[in-house]
């Protein structure tokens, strides 16, 4: 645990300005945790820099004084990744929120890490373009998005964040400013340091500029809401849809319980909740006819697989209603109960086994387990709800349930995290899942970038 000194603070104030350094009582408790329950730590101080040069000066100082530096964006993570567990400096990127360039010729955008995803998408829409990664949490910063490699709902069609980041500027632990990749769509020039940075959760460097790939914004979307008599029936239909040579841009599954929670949370009625389980399928395209064909095709498959009906939303407001509810699921669950989450990813064909296993666990442990997620890409968000459990019982039970879920993920050839990352809370599971050789390799990479282990210490593999 590093104790920030008066000298440290004076130095930092010199770099970023007195009004952008907060220490002691001035530290707002909001900055001590992310969006998951039960993990918080106070930093020695918080700084809000605005440039790579400022961050470089901070890192040089931190490096020579061995001060831990934890980087944070909006703090919407779910595994304690931005919690400063060793104190030191919490470096918040939210003032670096400029879209530096939208290059319509190269179809790229270059942004600072503190740009909020929602406002970025809105700005791109004015150009008839979009950035394909689409995490449910739209108030996240793009820096956090890139550092966790969070893919979101459109991954089924467009791939994850990694597939859309072309270049980065970053400050190394030593304070050196480096650039990797660029406005280039192909690159076979040595090891991909770019790919190492993506998903590194602030453990290898501080990202200060991000260049992403842009795509032409499809003119229209249509959404199918498909009610099924059981969750199992819903999920087993997913592979039939994917096999039928159509490519939805989102393919989500959900249960009635979660829909009802979202209705209460948003205060808006959902168009249908008569069935126990649903698939939500969205297509994008340029003509009404093309979308109608896709919808009818998938509706036919669903009906043949036992769906109760298939509801089609083509108006903007109707679709908004559906996707707003989907976007609010996590907040709605959190409003209902304290919870912990698992973000396992398995091969698409194994989703049904994983989800039906959560129901077995629910029975076995008498705890409510709700899941929803990206049925189309194998990434399931599983939430274990504390409800009325006493703290002591909950603490005893939670690790057992988590352990079982990760074991099942392993058995199904999956990985620990699909998009939320490892942070602090999933470290033990990552260790078990990757094994000694791979963890050792990763640790050596970490040491190559950060020999004094000052960048987000205690996270991922350090």
């Amino acid at each position, binding site marked *: 645990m590093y104790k920030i000194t008066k000298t440290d603070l004076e130095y930092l104030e010199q770099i970023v300005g007195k009004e952008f350094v907060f220490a002691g009582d001035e530290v707002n408790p909001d900055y001590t945790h992310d969006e998951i329950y039960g993990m918080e730590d106070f930093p020695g101080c918080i700084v809000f820099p605005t440039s790579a040069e400022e961050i470089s000066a901070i890192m040089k100082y931190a490096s020579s004084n061995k001060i831990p530096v934890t980087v944070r964006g909006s703090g919407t993570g779910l595994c304690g990744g931005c919690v400063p567990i060793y104190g030191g400096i919490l470096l918040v990127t939210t003032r670096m929120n400029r879209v530096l360039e939208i290059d319509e010729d190269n179809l790229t955008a270059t942004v600072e890490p503190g740009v909020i995803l929602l406002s970025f998408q809105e700005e791109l829409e004015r150009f008839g373009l979009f950035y394909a990664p689409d995490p449910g949490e739209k108030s996240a910063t793009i820096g956090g998005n890139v550092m966790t490699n969070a893919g979101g709902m459109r991954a089924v069609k467009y791939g994850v964040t990694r597939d859309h980041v072309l270049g980065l500027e970053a400050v190394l632990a030593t304070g050196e400013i480096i650039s990797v990749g660029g406005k280039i769509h192909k690159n076979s020039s040595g090891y991909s340091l770019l790919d190492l940075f993506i998903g590194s959760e602030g453990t290898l460097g501080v990202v200060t500029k991000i260049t992403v790939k842009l795509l032409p914004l499809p003119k229209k979307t249509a959404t199918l809401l498909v009610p099924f008599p059981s969750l199992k029936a819903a999920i087993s239909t997913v592979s039939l849809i994917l096999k039928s040579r159509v490519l939805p841009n989102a393919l989500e599954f959900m249960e009635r319980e979660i829909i009802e929670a979202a209705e209460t949370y948003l205060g808006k009625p959902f168009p249908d909740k008569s069935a126990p389980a649903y698939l939500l399928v969205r297509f994008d395209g340029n003509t009404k006819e093309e979308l109608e064909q896709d919808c009818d095709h998938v509706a036919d498959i669903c009906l043949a697989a036992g769906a109760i009906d*298939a509801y089609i*939303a083509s108006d903007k407001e*109707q679709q908004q209603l559906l996707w707003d509810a989907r976007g609010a699921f996590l907040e709605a669950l959190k409003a209902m109960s304290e919870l912990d989450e698992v973000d396992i990813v398995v091969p698409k064909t194994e989703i049904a086994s994983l989800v039906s296993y959560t129901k077995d666990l629910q029975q076995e442990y008498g705890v409510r387990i709700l899941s929803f997620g990206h049925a189309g890409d194998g990434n399931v968000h599983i939430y274990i709800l504390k409800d009325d459990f006493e703290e002591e019982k909950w603490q005893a039970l939670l690790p057992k349930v988590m352990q079982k879920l990760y074991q099942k993920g392993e058995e199904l050839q999956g990985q620990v995290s699909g998009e939320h990352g490892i942070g602090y809370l999933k470290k033990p599971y990552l260790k078990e899942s990757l094994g000694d050789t791979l963890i050792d390799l990763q640790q050596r990479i970490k040491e190559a970038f950060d020999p004094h282990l000052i960048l987000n210490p205690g996270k991922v593999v350090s």
Partner: protein
Amino acid sequence: MRIIVCIKQVPDTTEVAIDEEKGVLRREGVDSRMNPYDLYALETALRIKEQIGAEVIVLSMGPKQAEDVIKQAYYMGADSGYLLSDRKFAGADTLATAYTLALGVKKIGDFDLIITGMQTTDGDTAQVGPAVAEFLNLPHISYVKEIQKVAEDQLIVKTDMQDAIETQKVVLPALITVAKEIYQPRLISYKLKLRAKDRNICVWSYSDLVEVKGLLNDETEFFGLTGSPTQVERIFAPTRNSTKEIWEDQPDVLAEKAISKLKELKIL
């Protein structure tokens, strides 16, 4: 019970191009959809159907492609549909539209209740519903936000008077226009689509409607542009204003300032 729901096909955009010379909206090349308020009207009819049993009939005036919105109504649960379509109906103002729809209603014959959306998103006048009722000599209630009770011969509804909520009883036959608070419209059902995609839509032209002209009290014909008393002087898109002021001060001072600014802008 027989319920007639009046629906309209409108441009699916908020930025319609304007033909300044003719004083009309340019509708060519723009995708169209059912007027969003009509979805609430149709939903209201379908809920009544589910509650006490009813036949839901949709009625629209427009070019041939307006059949799309009638089909959409079928896919939501409407039983039959009529389209009033003739070059002579084109360019109608609210009065001529209401007149033509009223003739359509007369030709359909028996009904207990007419439901319309409170307004359209292209014209925004909220006049057509009540005007149809006037041509038909029907009692009518606008801005209905809740159906409190429905029976074969009467309705009890709540209406939104902006500063008050009024509860009214109306004896059927009658016409109501509904506000969007009423119900969440359902989505298109693919099962209904499979069942209804080839269902007939009855199309009536000028010659069909003049037959029933005598059934309305008014002798005058109000068809299309020539039958429209409204003369559009000028049509324009409102200018966007994006001026911005940034104030910095104590919260209570700022609050005072904000209130007086809103009053100055006549928002409060």
